[in-house]
C-alpha cells in the first residue's frame, strides 16, 4: 500500500489561514494527497488532520477535531509521511473505542496485530464470490420476505422516532450463521446520541454478544469531521477480522445521515459547487467507497456484511442520502410510521423493501424450496390488499371485487401475524409456516404465483403432518 519512496515527517510552523474545519498551509514540499497530519498548539490538545488538496502554493488540510480556538499562525504542523492507519487485531473484540480507535473503556490501548490504512482498496470484482449464504436474522419481515445474505449491504431506512437502531440491535443479538462459523459484530456509531448508543450497547454489555463485538463510538457531541473516519476505521477492522481470521462480520453503521452531513460540511468549507440539496456531487462515489467494502472473497473464509442505518430526513425516500444509498446498496429495509403507530414491531413496510441478493440465498437447501414462490405470492396479495384498502376508503368494502376483498382481509392478518413479532426471535421455519397459514385462507385462483407442484407438495406435507398426529 505504501508509496515506494516515502518522505519522512516534516514540521512547519504556522498555517496561512483557517476556515471552518480547513487549514491552509503554504509551501509544503512533497506533501502527499491523503497524508496524515498532526497539529500542535501550546496549551491545547493535539489535533489530527489529513491533506485533501496539495499544491505548490497552498496545501489544504482537513482537521478532524474541533477547530475552535485554533490559531493558524501559532500552530506547529507535522506532515507525517503516512496515510491514516488503524490498529487491527482479534484483541479488539469486546472493546469500546472512540470514533478513531482510542480506548473508551478505561483499558489500555490494544496492541493489535498490525496497522492497516483505513481507506481500503477496491476488491477486484473477479475475486469476489457471489454472495449466497443465508443469514438468519430472526426477523420474519427480513428472513421471509427480504432475505439477508453474507456479503450483502442492506440498509435500514428509518425516520426520526422509528426504531431503526432497535431493529439493528435485535438482528445483532439474534443473527446466527447457518453452520455455527465464527461470527463478530462491528458497530460504528456515527454522530448518534448517547441515548441511541445506549439503546444499542446496553443490551449486550453483560451478555456474551459483547465478547464478539467491537464498538467504535463517535457520538453527537464528538467532533463532526471525525465522522468521516469512524466508518472507515470500523470497516478496516471488519475486513481484517473477516479476511485474515475468517470471521463472518456484521457491520452496523448508525447513522449514515450524520456521515453525509459531515461530508457536506467539508464540501461547503472548500467552496465546492454543491449538488442536490447542498450535498457534494461526489457523494455517490464517497458512499460507495464505504458500502462497496462489503463482500465475500473467493479465496477466503470470512465475509463482511453491512447493515447501515439511514434516517430519512422528513421520511423522504427521494432525499439524496437515502436515494444515493439505495442506488449503491443491495436493497433496503423500509420502516413505516403507520405500522409503528399501530403497534406493529418491527414496523417494516415490505412493499418498498427489497433484498436484491435474496434469490441467491434462498430456496433449495438454503432455506425452503418454495421460498421464492411463497414470498412472491405473499407480496402479490399484500400489494393488492393495500391498493384495495385505499379503494375501500372511498367506495366502502362492499364495492370491492371479490378478489380485492380477500386481499383486504389478508392484509390485516399479514401485518399482525407475520410482520409483527415483538422482540421475540422467530425461526425461519416458523415464519414460513405462518405465511402458509395466511395463504391457505385464499382461493386457489388467487395463488397464481404458486406452481401446482408446490401446492401439491404442501398439501402432502399437511396430510403427513396430520397422520403423524
Amino acid at each position, binding site marked *: 500500500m505504501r508509496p515506494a519512496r516515502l518522505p519522512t515527517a516534516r514540521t512547519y510552523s504556522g498555517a496561512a489561514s483557517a476556515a471552518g474545519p480547513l487549514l491552509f498551509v503554504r509551501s509544503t514540499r512533497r506533501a502527499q494527497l491523503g497524508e496524515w497530519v498532526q497539529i500542535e498548539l501550546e496549551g491545547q490538545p493535539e489535533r489530527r488532520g489529513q491533506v485533501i488538496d496539495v*499544491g505548490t502554493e497552498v496545501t489544504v488540510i482537513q482537521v478532524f477535531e474541533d477547530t475552535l480556538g485554533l490559531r493558524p499562525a501559532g500552530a506547529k504542523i507535522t506532515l507525517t509521511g503516512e496515510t491514516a492507519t488503524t490498529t487491527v487485531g482479534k484483541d479488539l473484540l469486546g472493546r469500546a473505542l472512540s470514533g478513531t480507535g482510542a480506548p473508551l473503556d478505561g483499558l489500555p490501548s490494544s496492541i493489535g496485530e498490525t496497522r492497516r490504512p483505513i481507506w481500503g482498496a477496491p476488491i477486484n470484482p473477479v475475486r469476489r464470490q457471489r454472495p449466497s449464504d443465508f443469514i438468519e436474522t430472526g426477523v420474519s419481515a427480513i428472513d421471509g420476505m427480504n432475505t439477508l445474505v453474507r456479503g450483502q449491504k442492506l440498509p435500514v431506512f428509518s425516520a426520526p422516532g422509528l426504531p431503526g437502531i432497535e431493529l439493528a440491535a435485535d438482528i445483532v443479538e439474534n443473527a446466527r450463521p447457518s453452520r455455527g462459523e465464527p461470527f463478530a459484530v462491528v458497530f460504528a456509531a456515527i454522530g448518534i446520541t448517547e441515548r441511541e448508543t445506549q439503546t444499542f450497547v446496553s443490551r449486550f454489555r453483560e451478555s456474551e454478544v459483547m465478547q464478539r463485538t467491537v464498538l467504535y463510538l463517535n457520538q453527537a457531541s464528538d467532533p463532526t469531521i471525525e465522522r468521516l473516519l469512524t466508518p472507515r476505521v470500523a470497516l478496516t477492522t471488519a475486513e481484517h477480522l473477516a479476511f485474515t481470521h475468517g470471521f463472518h462480520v456484521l457491520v452496523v453503521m448508525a447513522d449514515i445521515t450524520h456521515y453525509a452531513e459531515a461530508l457536506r460540511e467539508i464540501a461547503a468549507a472548500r467552496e465546492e459547487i454543491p*449538488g442536490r440539496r447542498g450535498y457534494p456531487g461526489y457523494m455517490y462515489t464517497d458512499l460507495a467507497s464505504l458500502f462497496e467494502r462489503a463482500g465475500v472473497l473467493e479465496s477466503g473464509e470470512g465475509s463482511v456484511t453491512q447493515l447501515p442505518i439511514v434516517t430519512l430526513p422528513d421520511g423522504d425516500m427521494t432525499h439524496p442520502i437515502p436515494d444515493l444509498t439505495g442506488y449503491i446498496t443491495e436493497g433496503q429495509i423500509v420502516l413505516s410510521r403507520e405500522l409503528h403507530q399501530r403497534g406493529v414491531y418491527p414496523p417494516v413496510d415490505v412493499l418498498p423493501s427489497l433484498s436484491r441478493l435474496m434469490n441467491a440465498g434462498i430456496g433449495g437447501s438454503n432455506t425452503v424450496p418454495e421460498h421464492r414462490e411463497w414470498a412472491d405470492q405473499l407480496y402479490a396479495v399484500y400489494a393488492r390488499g393495500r391498493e384495495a384498502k385505499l379503494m375501500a376508503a372511498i367506495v366502502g368494502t362492499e364495492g370491492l371485487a371479490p378478489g380485492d376483498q380477500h386481499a383486504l382481509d389478508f392484509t390485516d392478518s399479514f401485518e399482525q401475524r407475520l410482520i409483527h413479532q415483538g422482540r421475540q426471535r422467530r425461526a425461519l421455519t416458523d415464519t414460513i409456516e405462518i405465511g402458509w397459514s395466511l395463504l391457505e385462507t385464499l382461493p386457489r385462483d388467487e395463488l397464481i404465483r404458486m406452481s401446482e407442484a408446490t401446492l401439491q407438495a404442501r398439501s402432502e406435507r399437511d396430510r403427513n403432518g396430520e397422520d403423524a398426529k
Partner: protein
Amino acid sequence: MSEARIIRVAGAIAEARPLGDVALYELVEVGERKLLGEVIRLEGEVATIQVFEETTGLALNEPVRPTGGSLMTELGPGLLGSILDGVGRPLQAIADRSGDFIAPGMALPPLDPDARWTFSPTVSSGAEIAEGDVIGTVEERPGLVHQILLPLGTQGRVARIEGGAYTIKEPIGALEDGTPLRLSHRWAIRKRRPMVRRLAGDRPFITGQRVFDFLFPVAEGGSVAVPGGFGTGKTVIEQSLAKFAKADVIVYIGCGERGNEMAEVLHDFGRLTDPETGRPIMDRTVLIVNTSNMPVAARDASVYLGMTVAEYYRDMGYHVAVLADSLSRWAEALREIAARLQEMPGEEGYPTYLANRMSRLYERAGRVETLGSPSRTGAVTFISAVSPPGGDFAEPVTQGSLRVAGALWALDAGLAHQRQFPAVDWDTSYSLYVEATSAWFSAEGSSDWSELRSQTMRLLQRDRELREIAGLVGVDALADDDRLVLEGARIAREFLIGQNAFHEHDAFSAVAKTHSLAKLLWDFMNRGGSILSDEAGFEKLDLATVRLAFGAVKNAAPSDLDAMVSHATDAIANMGTP
C-alpha cells in the same frame, strides 16, 4: 526541457508543469507509480490531468511523462470472454499480480500477448487491399469467426501472407511497402470507427422480454434509454438481455455499479448456455467493469471502451448489443471532474457539454455498411440504464437520453413495489421502431402481430381510465363489458407483460410464445364479449380456470408450449358453459 512535475493534486485531478508539446486527451504516466492519466486541459505550461487510478499518496514534485498517444485499446482475437476494467486492463491479470484487492499503477494490455491463434488468410500475395478489408479469419470461440481487418490508414499490395498459429504480436505477413500485417491493431477509444454509410434498421432486436418485443420493440442498431429509480429492476433487465437476447456479441458495461452484481454476472454467465448454440454465454460476451468504488475517471473511459469494442465486432459484420449500466454514473463522473476543474456548471451541476457528449455516444449505435471488402453490414444496438435521482425523470441525464434514444423503457417504482416485473410503465414508455419492425414481426411472427399490439395498447389505456372510475364508484357499479376490460387488462399485466426473470422457462420468451399469449388474451376478450352479449352476467365467466391456464402457458417449457396453448384455448372456449 526539464521533466514535468506535479504541482497540484485534488481528488482525481492532478496538474503538472511544464508538459511541453502534449495534445488534449494525450495519455500520461503520473508520478513514480506511473498511474494512468489523460490530459484534459492545457493552459500555458500547465496541463490538467484526470487520473484513472487512486490518487491517494501522490506527492508534489513527482514526475509526469507524456506517452505520445491518446487512450488506446488493442482490438483483436481474445476480447470475447474477457473482463476488462474501465481503461481496458484485464481484471484477471490484475488479480494475478496484486491479489484480492486492486493496487494502482499496473500497465497491462487487454489481450493476452502469449495466446496463439490459428489464422487462415482470405487474401493472397499480390492482392490489392485497403483499410477495413478482411484479410483472413481466426476462430476466436467455437462458432464465432473473428475477421482480421486491415487497420485504418493502411493500403497496398500484399507481399506475403501465410496461415498458421500466431500471437497478436507476430507478423502474419507484410505489404510490399514493408508494413507488417498483424492479428490485432490499436484504436483510440474516444474516436468512433468509420463506416461507409448508415442503414435503416428494419429488423427487431429480439430481447426475449415480451413487454419489449411485443409493445416497445427496438430495431437492430437502435438505442434505448431505460430510466428507473433504485429497485425498479434496471439491472435485472440489462442482465436478462445480456443472457437471452439475440445478438452475436454482447458488450456489458458495468459503469459505477455494484461489485457483488458483477460477481453475480460472472457466476451466471460462466454457467449459462445459449439455448440456440449450446455454448456458454460468456463466449459471446465482453465485460467491462468499473465498480462504484473504482476510480471515477475510469468510469468516463469505460463507456467509450465498450463502444469501441462493439464497433470493432460490428465492422466484422456482426450484430452487437451494448448494455450499459448505468449512464448516470458516467455522467456523474463527468460532473465530478468538471467540478474539480471549476467549470461553470449547467443544470444540476452537470457540465454544459453533457447533452452533447451523450448525443455523440448514443449516435455510435446504428446499423451500417462497413468499410472494406467483402461488403458487410453490422449493427450496434445500445441499451442504456439511467438512474434518475429520486426516480424523477425531469433531470439532465434522462432528458438528454430521450433527445437521442429511439425508445424509452420507463421503469416505475409503484409497479416494482407491487412486484410487477419487468416494471415497465406502459403509459410513459414508447418506441419509435414500431413501424419499422412491424413488417418483420408480421412475416416472422404472425400476420396479426401489429393488430394484436395496437388492441392491447388500447386495452391497457382503457383499463387505466376504468380503474380511476372504479376507484370512485366501486367495481360493482361498472358495466359488465367494462369489468371484462379490467379482467383482460389484469391478464395482460400478469401473464403477457409480467415475466419472471428467475423462472427457468419464463425468463426468455420466444417470439412464438409471446404471440401465443397475446393471441390468447384476445381470444379471451372476444369470447368473454360474446358471452356477455348473450345477456349472461359477468359472474358466469369461469375466470379461475382461464387464469390458471394462462399461467401454465407463461411458464411452459418450449416442448410443452403447444399443449398448454391448446389447453388454454379450450378453457377460454368453455368459460361460459357451467
